[in-house]
């Protein structure tokens, strides 16, 4: 059985006024049927370019992409039937209602009388009472749900979600993931890009990380977490940290998270803070999560790039 998605040495170069930009450099990985797969990376890493190539919206400079064996360039029609893509940009057709948009989308795939499935999609995504509302009158989160429904009208075997939860409230995120997880259990393959790493950690069995157009990690999520070198000491404070601690820490508002390897290091860190007269609240030590691993890998990559430069 062929893989659900194959990215075979995919490169994309753009000519820009400042020279050639290597948006993607020989990216290679495969996603197996039924997988829930995360594609992670900072802004500008090339995730959306890779998805555009998969969708047939952008041609790769070299390499090939296939969906269940169908090449997205040479066998584009078959590939598009297998794919359901939710684009990152919030876009909608202002002329029509939700149901009209979904009926048209079905029709483009040659599917008539699709209302049973459309009703199921509307119910699953909490849109039933908006079916006859014009797209213009929906909130951003509601429009996002319709985009998900539009990508699913033709029952694609592979679902691609590009930042589906950006700017979306907690309730929708839960509705959306419950629904996508159900489709995944029913056999759909899911490829997801997201900035919310806890979502990727909770949902995805495997993770690929992109940085500056290159694949820098491709592993099972559990493996990646196990490999994490450190634990995290987390606390709150309003005061400045001594330099030796600050350089190992990252701050989110008044929350500080310091990388620590073992109990001795925890004690040393706390001692250093006490000596500097820093008052701490809500102290906890936790295992490193995907976000910590992500930051570690990105930092390591930047360091090697620095050496090569």
């Amino acid at each position: 059985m062929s893989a659900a998605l194959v990215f075979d040495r995919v490169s994309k170069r753009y000519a820009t006024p400042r020279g050639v930009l290597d948006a993607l450099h020989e990216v290679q990985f495969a996603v197996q049927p039924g997988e829930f797969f995360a594609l992670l990376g900072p802004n500008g890493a090339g995730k959306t370019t890779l998805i555009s190539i998969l969708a047939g919206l952008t041609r790769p400079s070299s390499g090939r992409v296939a969906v269940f064996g169908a090449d997205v360039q040479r066998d584009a029609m078959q590939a598009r039937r297998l794919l359901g893509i939710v684009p990152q940009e919030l876009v909608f057709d202002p002329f029509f209602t939700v149901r009209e948009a979904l009926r048209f989308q079905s029709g483009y795939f040659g599917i008539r009388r699709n209302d049973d499935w459309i009703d199921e999609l509307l119910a699953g995504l909490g849109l039933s009472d908006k079916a006859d509302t014009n797209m213009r009158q929906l909130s951003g989160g509601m429009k996002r749900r319709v985009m998900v429904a539009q990508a699913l009208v033709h029952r694609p075997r592979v679902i691609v979600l590009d930042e589906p939860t950006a700017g979306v409230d907690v309730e929708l995120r839960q509705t959306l993931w419950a629904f996508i997880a159900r489709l995944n259990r029913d056999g759909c393959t899911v490829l997801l890009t997201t900035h919310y790493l806890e979502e990727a950690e909770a949902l995805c069995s495997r993770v690929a990380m992109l940085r500056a157009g290159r694949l820098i990690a491709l592993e099972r999520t559990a493996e990646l977490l196990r490999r994490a070198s450190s634990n995290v000491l987390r606390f709150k404070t309003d005061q400045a940290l001594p330099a030796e601690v600050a350089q190992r820490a990252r701050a989110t508002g008044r929350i500080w998270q310091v990388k620590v390897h073992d109990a001795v290091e925890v004690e040393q860190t706390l001692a250093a803070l006490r000596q500097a007269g820093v008052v701490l609240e809500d102290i906890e030590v936790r295992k490193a999560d995907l976000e910590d691993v992500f930051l570690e890998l990105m930092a390591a990559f930047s360091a090697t790039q620095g050496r090569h430069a």
Partner: protein
Amino acid sequence: MSGWRTLFVKEVLRFWKVAFQTVAAPIVTAMLYLLIFGHVLEDHVQVYDGVGYTAFLLPGLAMMSLLQNAFANSSSSLIQSKIMGNLVFVLVTPLSHWAWFVAYVGSSVVRGLVVGAGVLLVAAWAAELHFAHPLWIVVFAGLGAALLGALGVIAGLWAEKFDQMAAFQNFIIMPMTFLSGVFYSIHSLPPFWQRASHLNPFFYMIDGARYGFFGVSDVSPWLSLAVVAGAFVAVSALTLHLLRIGYKVRH
């Protein structure tokens, strides 16, 4: 595959839902031309024997509205979808370039015919309508609308901003329609402009349609048919090519 039918229906509904702006407005504009030019020139200009100026003007005016609206339909639909970003919903489907062509050009023909017929219908009070050869009217109305619909697809794909589209419309489509003999017979022009008019495919569409109404025209309807059909084939070939390669919509 029947996907083209859905895209066609969607494109027709798109203009029909805002028919006040896409159908009623151009009919009102045509009526204003008819009222003003007809009133001012009725007693001064006679182009064909036994045909009053208002009666002469009406078929050309209907054709002009038909052509402009056929162009406006495909071009504005495409540029709006490009700028709004919702063209992506069509781009990710297995619709072929033929499906795109038939849907966008077909819906433009529908809008052109609706507006053209609307102008004739509303203007029926102003002048007595002749239908000497109705089939010729249908042929030139249909072919002309299809040609402009295809040109609209090219413009819609090419333009990246609304002002580029406006430039295409104001500097190419408008002069060609106005200089096509809608308001006069080209025999009344100085020789240079007569020759220039003969290079304008719009002239043949208007003149051919006028033959259908009056049984009289500046050139033979067969010549007009050859020119208009030739232009349609050439423009369609280019349109299909641009759709096939995804000109400016796939990178």
